[in-house]
Every structure is written in structure tokens, then in C-alpha cells.
């Protein structure tokens, strides 16, 4: 079964109009996300598993070729940064 990513407690993902990008907020800190990081994390809702996230992104960016490896690598990286849990 594929894993379901969730934001760790204390991490909040939101769109910031003033910065014109998605950001990840955590205790006394903030990461500005680039377009692809923002698009991937925007799919993290605690329900969709990794396969569903890849499928959804594939649908949003049909021209982009196979997104699977990049999305998986990014999510693993995000887990290592302790932004999300993969369970």
C-alpha cells in the first residue's frame, strides 16, 4: 500500500499573497516554496496517498512527462526535513 503524507503538528502550509507563493510555517520559522514544491505540498491533505498525489499532479501538468520519481523524491526529502510524516 502506498504511503499517506501528512504535515507534522506545528507545520502550516498556506498561500501568501504578499509573497506571491506558498509558504510552510512552523515555530518561529517560514520556508518560501518554489512553484513545484508548492504544487506538491498543496496536494498533502492527510487523505491522498503518494500515488493519488502523483496522479493528481499528472492531471494538472499533462505536458510535464512522468512526475512520479521527482514527486516521491521531494516527499522523502520533506520527511527528512521533518515537515511531513509518511505513514
Amino acid at each position, binding site marked *: 500500500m502506498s504511503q499517506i503524507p501528512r504535515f*507534522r503538528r*506545528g507545520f502550516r502550509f*498556506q498561500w501568501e499573497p*504578499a509573497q506571491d507563493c506558498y509558504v510552510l*510555517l512552523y*515555530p*518561529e520559522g517560514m520556508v518560501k516554496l518554489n512553484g513545484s514544491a508548492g504544487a506538491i505540498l498543496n496536494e498533502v491533505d492527510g487523505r491522498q496517498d503518494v500515488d493519488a498525489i502523483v496522479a493528481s499532479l499528472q492531471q494538472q501538468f499533462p505536458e510535464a512527462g512522468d512526475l512520479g520519481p521527482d514527486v516521491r523524491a521531494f516527499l522523502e526529502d520533506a520527511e527528512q526535513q521533518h515537515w511531513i510524516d509518511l505513514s
Partner: protein
Amino acid sequence: MTRADALPTSLNPNNAGPPLWLLAELTYRCPLQCPYCSNPLDFAQTEQELTTEQWISVLRQGREMGAAQLGFSGGEPLVRQDLPELIAEARKLGYYTNLITSGLGLTEARVVAFAEAGLDHIQVSFQASDPELNNAVAGSRKAFEQKLAMAKAVKAAGYPMVLNFVIHRHNIHQMPDIIDLCERLGADYVELATCQYYGWAFENREALMPSKAQLDQAEAEVNASRAGLQARGSAMKLIFVTPDYYEERPKACMNGWGNLFLTVAPDGTALPCHSARLLPIDFPNVKDLDLREIWYDSPGFNHYRGNEWMPEPCRSCDEKDKDFGGCRCQAYLLTGNADNADPVCSKSPHHERILAARRAADHATAGLQDLVYRNVRNSRLFFRG
């Protein structure tokens, strides 16, 4: 969208970006007496605190301008009875809200109520890893026990947990114990912040500043702990802020003057950093001007933007875009002129002041009894004169 388009009514002469961090110092009142407190020496002189409505207006304006991180601090913010209301408003506006507290005045019920109001994070500060030293530094007999209980309550309520320890020569030997304590409490982040010498800490510098040998040992211990945590797969992060007095280049203070950080003091004075009040500069008040004018157009906030103001050696230095000449408060406290290069810099003609402080730290004998504690009585001494 360019910044200029976003600000049709603003002159914004230095093309400054928005304040992304807002620090709301709700009050200077505090039950503790930490001798390194960053509040102004004459805090007891401060007039009336802003009302609830005035704070809410500050929060709204800040958020509209783009602030995303919000800190409630002080003093001890818990003494404000309207805190739950301010938290709820902040959350509604979309801030990530941080409560920076000593833990005194906190109860389990308040911890839970704040979570319901939408508080994202509570940072509890400690003075040491054991009750005797903690309470001696805090100037309060029951502080440690209360802090422990509240750290546990914060954890139990599911908040991310940040524990903060201000480090100085009297507790720097406790690094391994401090880190152990934090791991037992289940902290996510541990801030080991050596004193920055402004405000009360500057008055007490000789009695607070660790020696180079103490610092080296502490760094080695922190690195060893970090390796241990990683090997055990622990997610606890250690953030060790070393004193810039042992550097040869200054820190890029606040990421640049009036660049990201906006502090509002209890009486509504707006500042580019929480210690800037000590500078001989007129800072605007949120009671008189709206936040946008304050941030983009006021002389106080534009004073040290850009680098036109710099004298030598910064003016012709190729590192000036990296560190902005360092900290204005430090320049002022150590050289008498806030325009000067931060004397931490080895190119500063006043660097000798830093070297002298290092030498003094090697031979310092001052104990806790020699510290000037931060309380109303001592504060009055600083403005009676």
C-alpha cells in the same frame, strides 16, 4: 506584481520589502527578573500599554502588509487578560502565532484554551537545567517547578515544543544536562541562545559573558549531542546561538534594518528590532501613524536602510551587502555612534573593545550576587539619575 504597484500610496524611498515577521511585545510587566532581559533598562517608565482594540488594529494592518509570523512576547504576555482574544483574532487573520513565555501565569486550562483559540506554538524559556540555578537567575523561588509542569502541559496539548535557554557563564557548563532535560520533555526544538549584550545583559556583561574556553567546550558538547540525537533518529533540533563577541565579522543583524522584522513595543512604539529603542532615533508610534506609513515612509525605519549612511570602513568594504555593517545597537553601545561599524568586526577601529571584553571574560570572578536583576526598583535607577 512589483512592490511599487502594491503600494500606490507609499513613497517607500528604499524600495523595502514587506515585514514578514511581527513581534507584539504586549507588556513589559513580568514576574521574573532575568539579568539579561532584552527589555529597555528604563522599562518601568513606559506609559500605558495599547488597548485590545489597538492591538487588534496592529495585527490587521500587519497581516494586510504581508506579515505571516507573529510573536506574542513581552515582558510576560500572559499578564494580558485579553490574550485569548488576541490569539483568536491573529489566527483568524491567518498568522502563525507563537507565544513566547516564561511559563509563569500559565495553567493547563489556559494551555488548552489557547489551542482552541488557534495558537500554533508555545515557547517556554528556562534559566537552567536544575531548580537552584534556574530560580537564582530568574529571581523567583518557584519558577523551575512551574516551568517543568507547563512544558509537560504544552506537550500534552499537542503543540510543537520549543524550549529556550539563555546561556551565559553561570549555566554554560550545563549543556549536556540541558539537552537531556529537553529530550525527556519531548522538545522538538531547543534554542541554546547565548546572551546578546543589549539592555540588561549589557549592564551585566562582565558577569554573564562566557570565556572562550567555556564556549569551546559547550560547542563540542552540543555537537556531540547532535550526533547522538541523529544516531538515535531523534527529530529534536538543537539551535546553538554563539555570542558574536567571539566572531571577527558581525552578524547580519535582523537580516537588515527594516527588512523583515517589525516590533511593536507595549506602548505602541514601532521598532526595527526589540532593542532599537536604546538608539538616539525617533521611532513612530502606531497610535499616530498607520503601520504602512511607519514601515515604508517613516524616517526611523528608513534611517539605516540601504548603505548610503555607512562611514568607513564599511563604506568601501566588499562585505557590506552581507552583514550590513552589523548591529546598530552594538555600534552605539560600544562606540557611542550608531553609524559606526559593529566593533565585532576586526576591521572596526573600535574592535579593541571586543578584545578587552574577551580578556575580561577569561579572568571574570563575578558571581550571581553581582548581577543587576531586572525589576522595577532597579529600572527606576536608570531614569532617575
